């Protein structure tokens, strides 16, 4: 079975531009979460979506938005890019909303975004 997939792998944008990152969860998983990992830091929670609804949001500005589609894939959108948005963006999927040790979160390889 395919794991979590993300596209694109790498992306270079300039300040002020908009970017869309995509994630396909593991088949059968209905929950998708997005994390931002800045160099030298651990992943920081951005959003969680379950059954196409936003279930939680981390401490990120409104420039960050996301959505989940009927097939449970997800997009992360970032507007008005800043240099500080340069990071690895990780998508994670799980089978339930409030997962426990019975249902782990599985991460994709990430999208490396560079803002110049």
């Amino acid at each position, binding site marked *: 079975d395919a794991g*979590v997939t993300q596209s694109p792998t790498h992306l270079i944008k300039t300040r002020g531009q908009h970017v869309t990152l995509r994630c396909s969860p593991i088949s059968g998983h209905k*929950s998708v*979460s997005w*994390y931002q990992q800045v160099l*030298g*830091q*651990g*992943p*920081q*929670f951005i959003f*969680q979506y379950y059954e196409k609804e936003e*279930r*939680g949001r*981390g401490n990120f500005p409104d420039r960050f938005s996301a959505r989940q589609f009927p097939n449970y894939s997800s997009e992360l959108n970032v507007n008005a890019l800043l240099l500080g948005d340069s990071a690895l963006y*990780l998508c*994670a999927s*799980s089978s*339930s*909303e*409030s*997962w*426990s*040790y019975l249902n*782990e*979160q*599985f*991460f*994709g*390889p*990430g999208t490396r975004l560079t803002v110049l």
Partner: protein
Amino acid sequence: DQQVKQNSPSLSVQEGRISILNCDYTNSMFDYFLWYKKYPAEGPTFLISISSIKDKNEDGRFTVFLNKSAKHLSLHIVPSQPGDSAVYFCAAKNGGSTLGRLYFGRGTQLTVWP
């Protein structure tokens, strides 16, 4: 505010020896703890976890210890192998929340040399 802390950015261990990675947390609501391993150009991979009702969980060469009173957990790798060289992240989940949100530490780069 960093609720999960990994104070050692790097650790170097000889092959065959024990690797001990440490993690501290501040939020008493955390009830589930995980260790992830990350290679360059890959996403974090789940390694081992422990519930707050336990103080030890073992899986092959990997053992995680939890000291709730000290809000401290550690990952022991015995024996260490060169393939274990990676960044290890400690993560925690808030038992008071219905979200699947994970709180991560900054990671520890483990290098196992022959």
